[in-house]
């Protein structure tokens, strides 16, 4: 009997007692130790290099000097666009799955299976998918249509009576350039191509020859890596996280208050919009937090879809490329001519990346807890 009690109660000193309480405690200590060592290491080594200049300046001298502002800016912008894309789509998907789809619906089951599969795909695969789908398929399709439109416009302009090559006439490249420069449309892109016209500026060309030549010089605007494609690729990656957490939140809304709303003559959509969704805001925020945490640190999906290692100007349009903290770190650590010289920069960059993610998380967590408090008066 006495032995049994020892076994069941796991007294201090007994082997079972060690397994029951000591081992988990040890595991916790190891985990905490790693967190403290990793973060502590970056704080101690990195904080020395963080200065106002580092945070607000552009990199100089092949990334070995200067600051990381373009990377901070790019990362924040990327995560913002990603959230704006992933949260609404994820919320609507979760709404469909929990509120509209019947439990027996095959379509809903397929979606659920797809979401679960998506969650398990390695992030580099997302990067390749983004390149293949968004850039090479969607983007280049947009470019083709856009450029075709532009060529049609060019044909109209060249056929006008003021044009030197209207109605089968021929003119030199120089004359055409002058004509296009004075046109109300913006043909700067095409004029740049005319500067390198193979026959030089002397030979006379017809309208058809010119359009044919320019048609082959399709400019890439959307069919190349850019901020929007990187953000959408990242949104795909974080979509399962959003869907799952919003679904959880939707399930916690009691059936009773949905019934109360429906019994008052509200339609299903009115009930969702006025009762269910407001009660889910903390859950949607949780989903966004998780998505941001996941998305801010991922480098693989943006490797082929929009990140660059150095920039002349900050991105100002969705089709611009951008710098990214994670990618910048990778560049500093592996692609720099003098890796040792960039080491303080690496530590400081990591610290900024950690800080940025943490700050985004904290904001969302505080927002969520305030909303929760207000709800449970």
């Amino acid at each position, binding site marked *: 009997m006495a032995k049994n009690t020892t076994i069941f109660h796991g007294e201090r000193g007994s082997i079972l007692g060690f397994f029951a309480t000591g081992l988990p405690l040890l595991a916790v200590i190891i985990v905490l130790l790693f967190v403290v060592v990793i973060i502590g290491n970056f704080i101690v080594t990195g904080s020395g290099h963080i200065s106002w200049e580092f945070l607000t300046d552009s990199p100089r001298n092949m990334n070995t000097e200067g600051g990381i502002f373009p990377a901070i800016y790019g990362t924040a912008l990327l995560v913002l666009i990603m959230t704006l894309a992933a949260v609404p789509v994820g919320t609507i998907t979760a709404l469909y799955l929990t509120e509209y789809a019947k439990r027996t619906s095959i379509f809903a089951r397929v979606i659920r299976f797809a979401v679960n599969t998506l969650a398990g795909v390695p992030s580099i695969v997302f990067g390749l998918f983004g390149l293949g789908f968004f850039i090479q398929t969607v983007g280049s399709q947009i470019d083709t249509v856009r450029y075709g439109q532009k060529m049609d416009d060019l044909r109209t302009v060249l056929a006008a009576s003021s044009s030197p090559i209207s109605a089968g006439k021929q003119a030199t490249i120089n004359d055409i350039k002058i004509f296009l420069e004075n046109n109300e449309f913006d043909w700067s892109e095409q004029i740049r191509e005319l500067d390198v016209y193979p026959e030089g500026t002397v030979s006379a060309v017809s309208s058809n020859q010119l359009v044919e030549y320019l048609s082959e010089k399709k400019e890439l605007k959307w069919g190349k890596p850019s901020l929007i494609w990187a953000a959408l690729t990242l949104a795909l990656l974080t979509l399962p996280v959003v869907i799952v957490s919003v679904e959880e939140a939707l399930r916690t809304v009691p059936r009773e208050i949905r019934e109360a709303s429906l*019994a008052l003559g509200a339609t299903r959509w009115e009930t969702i919009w006025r009762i269910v969704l407001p009660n889910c805001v903390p859950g949607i925020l949780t989903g966004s937090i998780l998505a941001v945490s996941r998305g801010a640190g991922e480098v693989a999906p943006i490797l082929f879809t929009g990140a660059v290692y150095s920039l002349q100007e900050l991105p100002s349009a969705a089709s611009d490329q951008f710098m990214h903290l994670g990618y910048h770190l990778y560049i500093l650590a592996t692609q720099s001519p003098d890796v040792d010289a960039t080491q303080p920069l690496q530590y400081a960059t990591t610290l900024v990346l950690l800080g940025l993610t943490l700050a985004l998380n904290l904001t969302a967590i505080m927002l969520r807890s305030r909303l929760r408090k207000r709800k449970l008066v």
Partner: protein
Amino acid sequence: MKKEEIIKIHTHNLSLFYGDKQALKDISMTMNANKVTAFIGPSGCGKSTFIRSINRMNDLIEGVRITGEVKIEDVNIYAPEVSVANLRKRVGMVFQKSNPFPKSIYENVAYGPRINGITDKAQLDDIVERSLKGAALWNESKDRLTASALSLSGGQQQRLCIARAIAVNPDILLMDEPCSALDPISTSKVEELILELKENYTIVIVTHSMQQAARVSDYTAFFYVGELIEFGSTRDIFTNPKKKQTEDYITGRFG
């Protein structure tokens, strides 16, 4: 009967199936305007299912099939052209467990009018005041309309749910065991309220308490395993039941 009574709700051979299981068997009965009709019977007898088929709340459950008719003022509410949302605006419901929205007292009552498109503040204020007065909650809540509905006591919450239901100005009020979670004092308040409300509404109430049925209702229907066993004036059912099952139930021999 002194005054001629008007039939408000009429069911004809109403049967309801959950999948293969038949929960209601050929129920035909009438409920009169401005009267209280009580449904009694042991748990699982189908009385809640029956009351929920009057505002089509059973539609929300997957696998429910209904045959027969429910007519409100001669309109079959299961006809395809009937708008369920509009039906439910005319047939209010109070549930067993009080279920206020996690919003303020004011917003709870204003919810129904708002989905009906009323946005004028003065008009909403008026409806909220009238509804809360109608549910005998105005005096207790007029100084704290912006407080959360969840800060009210259980009995007050249930009266708030009644106020919320009458704010959309229905003809019919369905009450599914409205007092089962309330203490005796709150229960008697709700019962008084029911007697006042029947001036303006047709009331159908499901109750587990025979005394409650006797106190508040004009007509009583006794259900047993999905069948309507006996239906008549409350006085007749309680003093002179025609069926042995009814007598056994109201005298407490089973159930």
